[in-house]
């Protein structure tokens, strides 16, 4: 690439002929000292069909051919999930993540904590999601300039600079239809020209000068049940993982404190940087100056001593006949004790064995699909009514001649229960200091299935 052009002459400026000579005499260091460059060197975005659709270099340019090692590993791994996140090549190390059908492949030259890079790449993907509503190839291609500006702000010389969404949004305004219209008329830009004040203060996550006419603070307590249920219906492993997602639209610099009725339930907690750790340690109160907008306040695990009430049960009968090309499939889902709440949004997905050709089933409720390529059966049940339990029953067609699948597939269940935190966690009160107005406060509880698996 280099040197393919004729020596370009500037249009208006003719350097003194001797000036050029002087410069030529200078020994050029180029390429000599590359040995110690830390952190992220380059980033390639690759879609599922193996096209590199975006590349960004923070230091000198690394050729696309480095991705060949990645493709090689991808081929070896068969499915995308198994591509190793860290690949070693003769001159570089590739650390990649897979998000929303895109591989984010970063090129590293020297020792670096791999989690550092992985966490950062996820932050990049989160930011795209935040800016464009989705983190997809088309969204990135459509907004390539903003993507570039973002990457430029997020990383300097391969070291993260600004990753906080509140700050980025002050530096580079997210695209909206209105703004793009305005910009095209007035010629103004999406780029902020002052340093976000947050960068310098002790609260880098909050932007300054926030103003709302309606001041609101919402907290969603979302709990997920991770469980493995064995064949006989007994619980092998169950655990409750929760998060509190917040949507805070408050003017000025509110100082909030959130307290729980039963904070002892929380066994292991991770905090948004805004939370004052000390207050939590001493009083078990969440005290913080919130970022503006949506963010995850805490995530927690409920201590494992507590028995987890599993809200659904599954009756299943899956069998494959020896020396025949068919099998039977019969699954019923029912609610257990739920404190009077209904279980809704129930979806069951099953990865059927490879030998399965097709399935002929009847569902008493909801609809099912079977993808003969990926062998995934999805049954969208909806709400469970205790009076009439949903059931899916029918025949499984197997490849003739293939050996009988040895193991029955496990069933992955998703469900949702509104207005219930399965652990019993309850928010006691929310107080606001530092501002005079009275905000509208809201707390919502929801329980979901996390990694909920029934072995059959």
């Amino acid at each position, binding site marked *: *690439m280099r040197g393919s052009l004729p020596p370009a002459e*500037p249009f208006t400026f003719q350097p003194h002929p001797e000036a050029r000579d002087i410069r030529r005499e200078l020994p050029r260091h180029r390429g000599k000292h590359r040995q110690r460059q830390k952190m992220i060197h380059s980033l390639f975005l690759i879609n599922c069909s193996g096209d590199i659709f975006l590349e960004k270099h923070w230091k000198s*340019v690394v050729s696309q051919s480095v991705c060949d090692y990645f493709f090689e590993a991808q081929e070896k791994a068969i499915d995308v999930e198994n591509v190793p996140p860290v690949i070693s090549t003769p001159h570089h190390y590739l650390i990649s993540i897979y998000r929303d059908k895109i591989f984010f492949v970063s090129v590293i030259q020297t*020792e670096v904590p791999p*989690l550092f890079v992985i966490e950062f790449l996820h932050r990049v993907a989160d930011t795209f999601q935040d800016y464009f509503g989705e983190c997809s190839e088309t969204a990135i291609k459509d907004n390539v300039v903003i993507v570039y500006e973002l990457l430029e702000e997020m990383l300097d010389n391969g070291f993260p600079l600004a990753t906080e969404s509140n700050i980025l949004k002050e530096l580079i305004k997210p695209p909206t239809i209105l703004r793009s219209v305005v910009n095209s008329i007035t010629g103004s830009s999406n780029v902020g020209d002052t340093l976000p004040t947050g960068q310098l203060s002790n609260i880098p996550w909050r932007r300054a000068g926030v103003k709302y006419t309606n001041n609101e603070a919402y907290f969603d307590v979302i709990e997920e049940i991770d469980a493995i249920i064995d064949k006989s219906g007994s619980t092998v492993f169950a655990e409750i993982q929760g998060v509190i997602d917040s949507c805070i639209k408050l003017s000025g610099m509110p100082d909030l404190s959130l307290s729980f009725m039963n904070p002892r339930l929380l066994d292991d907690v991770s905090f948004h940087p805004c939370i004052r750790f000390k207050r939590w340690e001493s009083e078990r109160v969440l005290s913080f100056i919130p970022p503006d907008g949506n963010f995850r306040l805490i995530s927690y695990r409920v201590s494992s001593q507590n028995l987890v009430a599993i809200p659904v049960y599954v009756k299943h009968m899956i069998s494959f006949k020896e020396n025949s090309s068919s099998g039977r499939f019969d699954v019923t889902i029912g609610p257990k004790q739920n404190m009077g709440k209904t279980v809704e949004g129930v979806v069951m997905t099953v990865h059927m064995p490879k030998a399965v050709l097709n399935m002929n089933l009847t569902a008493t409720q909801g609809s099912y699909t079977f993808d003969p390529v990926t062998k995934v059966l999805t049954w969208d049940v909806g709400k469970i009514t205790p009076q009439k339990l949903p059931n899916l029953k029918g025949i499984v067609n197997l490849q003739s001649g293939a050996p009988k699948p040895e193991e029955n*597939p496990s069933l*992955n269940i998703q469900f949702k229960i509104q207005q219930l935190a399965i652990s019993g966690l309850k928010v006691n009160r929310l107080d606001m200091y530092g501002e005079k107005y009275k905000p509208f406060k809201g707390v919502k509880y929801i329980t979901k299935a996390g990694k909920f698996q029934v072995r059959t």
Partner: protein
Amino acid sequence: MSGNGHGYGEQAGEAAPELAQEAAPTTAPSVPAAFGLFSSDTKKNEDLKQMLESSKDSAKLDAMKRIVGMIAKGKNASELFPAVVKNVASKNIEIKKLVYVYLMRYAEEQQDLALLSISTFQRALKDPNQLIRASALRVLSSIRVPIIVPIMMLAIKEASSDLSPYVRKNAAHAIQKLYSLDPEQKEMLIEVIEKLLKDRSTLVAGSVVMAFEEVCPDRIDLIHKNYRKLCNLLVDVEEWGQVVIIHMLTRYARTQFISPWKTDDDIVEEHSENNFYESDEEQKEKDRNVKKTYTMDPDHRLLLRNTKPLLQSRNAAVVMAVAQLYWHLAPKSEAGIVSKSLVRLLRSNREVQYIVLQNIATMSIQRKGMFEPYLKSFYVRSTDPTMIKTLKLEILTNLANEANISTLLREFQTYVKSQDKQFAAATIQAIGRCATNITEVTDTCLNGLVCLLSNRDETVVAESVVVIKKLLQTQPAHHGEIIKHMAKLLDNITVPVARASILWLIGEYCERVPKIAPDVLRKTAKSFTNEDDLVKLQILSLGAKLYLTNSKQTKLLTQYVLNLGKYDQSYDIRDRTRFIRQLIVPNEKSGALSKYAKKIFLAQKPAPLLESPFKDRDHFQLGTLSHTLNSRATGYLELSDWPDVAPDPAVRNVEVAESAKEWTAILGKTKKEKPTEKFYSESEEEEDESASTSATESESGSESEKEDKEEGSSDESSASSSSSEESSDSESDSKESIAKKASGAVKESNAEEIKRKAKGISKTRNTSSSSDTASSSSEESSSDSKSVSDSRSDSDSGKSRSATSSKKEEKTAQDRKTASKQDVFLLDLDDFHPVTTPVAVPTAAVLSPSLTADLEGLSLSGSSVIDVTTQVFVPTKTHEMLHRMTGKGLSAHYHFSRQPDMFGDHMVSVQVTVTNTTDQKIENIHIGEAKLPLGMRIHEFNPIECLEPGGSATVSMGIDFCDSTQTASFQLCTKDDHFNVNIQPPVGELLLPVTMSEKDFKKEQACLSALYLLSNPRDADRNE
């Protein structure tokens, strides 16, 4: 070389503004001609060029957006370089930013043209907006053009003393870039790093440690004094910085503290926090006590305590960093606290899981107990990717013990049936390992594995065979039945490893299955030619072993097999055949060895150890890339072993050592500002506030977990007290220097009028610097500052950049008036950094050497009288005034002759050498109109009538700089031309050198501090 580069950079710097000015209304006639150059290139970029030439910003922006799109796709857009680079000075900030993006990508390829943009950045470096300053520095340092190294160096030095911590942060980033561009700058860069390490801003800490790790990771000594500060700031540093700092501190701690592991049981720990921050004296006292039992160094404890809250971070990298810190540094009894957090990370996405599981795998080998309570969290789900499954399995196997093995085996049973055969095979391996490790279950496992031999899947069977073989080898006693069973399987199994394993087993234990073994040999002899190499080798050994034990039945068969092997395609097999034949078939050549053939072949073989693949990984630091790859990555820094004897812990005390007093006194000035000074007080207080707030914040953060059990109120107080302790600690050096600074302060309060006058003088240049200050202070004031403490916490040199320079003016101004020698001596050494002036560029490199020379001069004589020293050393360093290119062949250099000026004692004498490099005479060289700041005067040199081609002439002139470092700009004129030139004096050149003994110095110093206390103007006079 660097001189050349320097010169050129300067030249470009002057020339490029012209370009930028012309570039704006750009439809000049020269354009079509330039287009002609590209006509041979692809036409498709023609429209982009036209758009870039257009006068409308929107068109330019569109063009730039398309170009960035091209870069993003990896297309070559380098031919647009000249068109793009002209827009670098665009007013539109978005265009500007996109041009920056372009520049960073292509500057390296088009170095010549990239130089045109440098001056824009240099100007932007002086911009009042800190964001613009910072981004200019970022781009400037990202342009990988070796010629601009000196400019970068200068920019970094300046930025490292910037008022804005954001700019300083960027300076720290730039250090790494410059270092990778030109490692020869290392020494200078280390100086900057050293300075930035002292920075109290949380914003800077992470970046500078990063730079430290990259440039000079072995200079542990730079960390000592900053260790406690870093520990205390850690909670408030942004998350990425935390990771870097924690890794660095892990390495540091391993070299500075003794191992807490040896005497884990009898740790006497100092939990009483009161002791901790008490005066250094007491601490030293404590350290002097020879410890019989192990006592953890309080600094060691500080690190552990301050990192613990970070386990609660949402950032997986931070959690992992703390986990590895505890693993490598904490007493074994405490390392357990990290497991909960690591297990939490397993809820994260698969990449994080992968890395965390790997680290847990390594940990769980050495300390099972840590993760035993979380056994079930490692249970495998069918939806996990295979790599996660195998890692979880690995951990489960490591955690297996007598108590949980039955549950685990039940779990394994499910896994064996998995559709994922690779995983099923791994499970069988795991069962094998459990069987060898836990003797109680060996038989159960073996039976289970034998059952698996009838599995339909070949990989499962093959794996079982291999594992059974290993198991049998560990206890071969009475397993004839199993061997027989396996021999029967041989007909059906096709996987080479499995077949080879069976054959080996039969050969090894052929005496236990005397009837079957020859039959197996017969069968395999038949299929020999179709077997895999691996199997062939085993057939050969089986034959050999049978020949030795049962030669009657198998002699012919073995010979047949050996013959087959002799003509095999693989040389390995031919070799083996030859070797075996020589060994077992007796002939005259075979010699002594064949006597021992039986012993050789049927020797007792040690059983293989079934080990975890993670066993040897712990020699890599956890959480590193090397650990993940299990091989040394480039740039991996080895974690040193604990020292046997701890190095002196006093090095971390932030206290001025006696010997360094004189220096720190001087250095201290750069760091310290007079809080009383009205003129700058606004910005200063702001700075102080924010600094102290952050200090308190960080302190309280760390406090919280010291006093786990105590209640909030007591917490609060101890936090603040210790914070002030801490700050006084670290600033003792600056306090010392207050005394010396007194001189300046006193006189300022003294001479009001003089001050006013000085202000007036400096007004012109203050406009630029004070607008700077104002803007940043206003920004700061908008940010919330809760706890306002008016402790005189240090405002670092950065803040004093603009302040000191003007202060200096004031001081020197009246110093001259009173003509006080000792003040001349004490004054003005404070500025070790190039002073920013609107045009400052070239002098920085020569500054410090000349200053050092001055200082040397000072300490030379031992006389008790203060003399004005005559020059012992006049640096020959000349500065360029006019480059021959800009001067159309006339070049001019100047240097400071350091002689009393003949034109008057306010004048600094400057020698100017003008050289004619053209081939014509230059006539009437003289000084033209001068644009001088108020109060400055120039004594012109006598015009040079005529300068022959190649000739040069030296003249001397005098400039009264008014004791400021402002630039004197004037015109150098020839008969038919005139050139604008500047002279900027380094601070040292404005001084009068004096000599005094150390004693005298101290005396003078003492007087001054007394003065300060009295703050009485007349006292000052009397003393003088």
